[in-house]
């Protein structure tokens, strides 16, 4: 009797499984599949993060998928965007696809809010595409051995230098090229400081260096420049590398003391910061990323010239990696498409983001935003090749170092900024700043390791 009952149950279970599988198939083949995506700028420039998804959706429809696709593009800053996503996720109305920076991936991964994509990425069908991505970028979107996104751009942090000022200092174009070539022995932090001092002394610039205001990625760049570590690979805990931090603090203090860096950059207006770069009032703008090349062509920061042309920028401004203590460093922050864990259609969502990260669409994105492409084959596309500036971006990407990843990075970034603003305004000594970093990290970051 029992055997009979178990047999019937087994047959019923099989039948139910068959029906479920058939239903899923039917869903994908016939029924309308509704997918939603959330993407972000911030600001209007990277709108291709959304447009590429739309193009991919059209492609999928062309392949016979009955798709109803809706994508939103937010020009807000990251915090309200992330709060909207968390609220949507907890209230059961989350999108299926989310575009995000790499720094948040560990947090969402730990909370199970996004899906690991390894089962899709490790297939034979995707292998060719997988291998086409630049080295290190998959690592940027991974956490604890699993990969959570497809990298669609690298925000390339770099130094902008004024060629026109250097020419006025008597340097030929060839000398400038040689000095700022990452391969050159001359490309050191000491050399940049020396040039800044000369330019300031000659009255060619008001300041040698300017950096960003507020808590931003620049504060990681400068720690990286001094060889700082951020995360302990073995435990996954954050590291406060006091040795690198001290060097970083001392460097900025020296710049302020020498009159090469304004003491009050934290209270400068953003427009004024960019005005100083585009008008050549500063020799080195060290707080930016490659995409600002585009911004300077679209916003009127220059009092006389307004929006700058590509020709003006090529003639007067150059880009370079950071001259780190162990060689040039180009800190790269990856932006990626991820799949939200609550999606009903993970397979179709993956098909969509895989198509949205094709070389052609990534080239369109790079050309629109002037940010770094993530796939090698993009460099061979004619549209991309025609962009002289993007070739330079690719060149400095040879010195890429991926941004750190940890849920507490945002907190850490704010701490460095606060300490640095204290040092630069003379409210805090370097020693006191290091002590502040230790105490604040212990209070705010669970499991932190003080080195």
């Amino acid at each position, binding site marked *: 009797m029992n055997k009979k009952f178990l047999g019937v149950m087994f047959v019923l279970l099989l039948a139910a499984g068959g029906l479920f599988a058939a239903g899923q198939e039917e869903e994908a083949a016939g029924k309308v599949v509704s997918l939603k995506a959330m993407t972000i700028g911030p600001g209007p420039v990277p709108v291709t993060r959304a447009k590429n998804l739309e193009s991919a959706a059209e492609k999928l429809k062309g392949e016979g998928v009955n798709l109803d696709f809706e994508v939103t593009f937010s020009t807000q800053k990251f*915090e309200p965007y992330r709060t909207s996503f968390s609220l949507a996720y907890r209230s059961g109305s989350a999108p299926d696809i989310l575009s995000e920076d790499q720094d948040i991936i560990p947090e969402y991964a730990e909370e199970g809010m996004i899906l690991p994509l390894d089962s899709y990425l490790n297939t034979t069908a995707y292998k060719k595409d997988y291998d086409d991505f630049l080295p290190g970028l998959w690592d940027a979107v991974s956490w604890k051995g699993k990969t959570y996104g497809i990298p669609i751009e690298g925000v390339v942090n770099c130094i902008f230098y004024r060629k026109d000022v250097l020419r006025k200092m008597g340097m030929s174009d060839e000398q400038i090229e040689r000095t700022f070539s990452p391969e050159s022995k001359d490309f050191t932090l000491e050399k940049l400081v020396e040039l800044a001092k000369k330019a300031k002394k000659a009255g060619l610039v008001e300041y040698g260096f300017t950096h960003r205001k507020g808590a931003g990625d620049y504060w990681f760049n400068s720690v990286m420049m001094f060889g700082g570590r951020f995360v302990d690979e073995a435990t996954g805990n954050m590291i406060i590398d006091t040795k690198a931090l001290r060097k970083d603090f001392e460097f900025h203090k020296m710049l302020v003391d020498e009159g090469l860096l304004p003491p009050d950059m934290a209270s400068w207006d953003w427009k004024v910061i960019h005005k100083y770069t585009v008008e050549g009032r500063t020799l080195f703008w060290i707080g930016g990323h490659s995409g600002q090349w585009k911004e300077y062509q679209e916003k009127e920061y220059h009092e006389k010239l307004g929006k700058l042309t590509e020709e003006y920028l090529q003639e007067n401004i150059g880009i370079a990696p950071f001259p780190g203590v162990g060689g040039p460093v180009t800190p790269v922050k990856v932006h990626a498409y991820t799949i939200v864990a609550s999606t009903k259609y993970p397979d179709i969502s993956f098909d969509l983001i895989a198509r949205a990260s094709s070389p052609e669409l990534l080239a369109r994105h790079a050309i629109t935003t002037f940010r770094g492409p993530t796939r090698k084959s993009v460099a061979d596309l004619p549209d991309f090749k025609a962009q002289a500036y993007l070739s330079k971006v690719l060149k400095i990407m040879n010195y890429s170092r991926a941004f750190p990843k940890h849920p507490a990075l945002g907190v850490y970034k704010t701490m460095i900024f606060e300490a640095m603003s204290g040092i630069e305004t003379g409210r805090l000594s370097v020693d006191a700043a290091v002590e502040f970093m230790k105490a604040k990290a212990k209070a705010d970051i669970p499991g932190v390791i003080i080195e």
Partner: protein
Amino acid sequence: MKKLIPYFFLLPLLLLILLFYIIPAVSTIYISTTDMGRSLRGDLVGVKNFARMFSMEDPVIGRVLINTVVYLFGALAITIGGGLVLANATFSLGGKTGGFFRLIWFLPRATPPVVWAFLWIWAFDPTKFGLLNMIFRNVGLAERSWMSLYPMLIVILANGILGIPYTMTILSAALGNIPTEVVEAAKIDGASGWQTILKIKIPLIWWPLSFLTIWHTLAYLTTFQYILMITGGGPFYASTPLALYTYQKAFQNMELGYGSALALVLILLSVIIIFAFRKLLGVQRET
């Protein structure tokens, strides 16, 4: 049945208070006992968040509390003192002239917050493009890093001045209610202008003056939007009061558990200060 009618009219408001104050307040108490972060999910941690604050494990909290007191009393002094002086001055001018000056002093209140903040940012911009630095340069004085040197003073002025129009309007009306014969009698008895203000007028407008003090105390303890826009609380927490720090921890760093604990302490602090002021100013007796 008739007795129930007032409650019927009060019901919608009570529901709104329940929905937008009581429920969030209870939620805040609960969240303050968790380690909730950006994912909006948290484990219970008991009083850990409060311990972090009261044990001064957070190295900034002491500085933030001092800032809160300095900011509160600085802004209050400008708002109440300035409002009283202007109310008396415009009332003395009387008629259309007094009204005209009151109207001019009302302009800051009619300015949108973002514009008001922008004006202060522009005025104290530390570069050569700042208004004050332009003036200083033109009269042969050295430019200054205003925002770095005097961040607290700037936010006190920006907020304190904005409170003046409201104080001035209420106090002008209160001065208008003082019987003229009382003031005339004081003059006949030989009271000077100062004596009339201190001994006659201020005691007679004590209730509105106390109300305005308490009202603005609450406002300065809990609002921070102008500080956020003008100095961002910096440099190095130099202009960060508790309300702004609570916002930064809860919504910028997304430490919702710790942020909620800070918010509860802020509410508690507000209640204590309000009761202290009520006692000190004798409001209870008057009402």
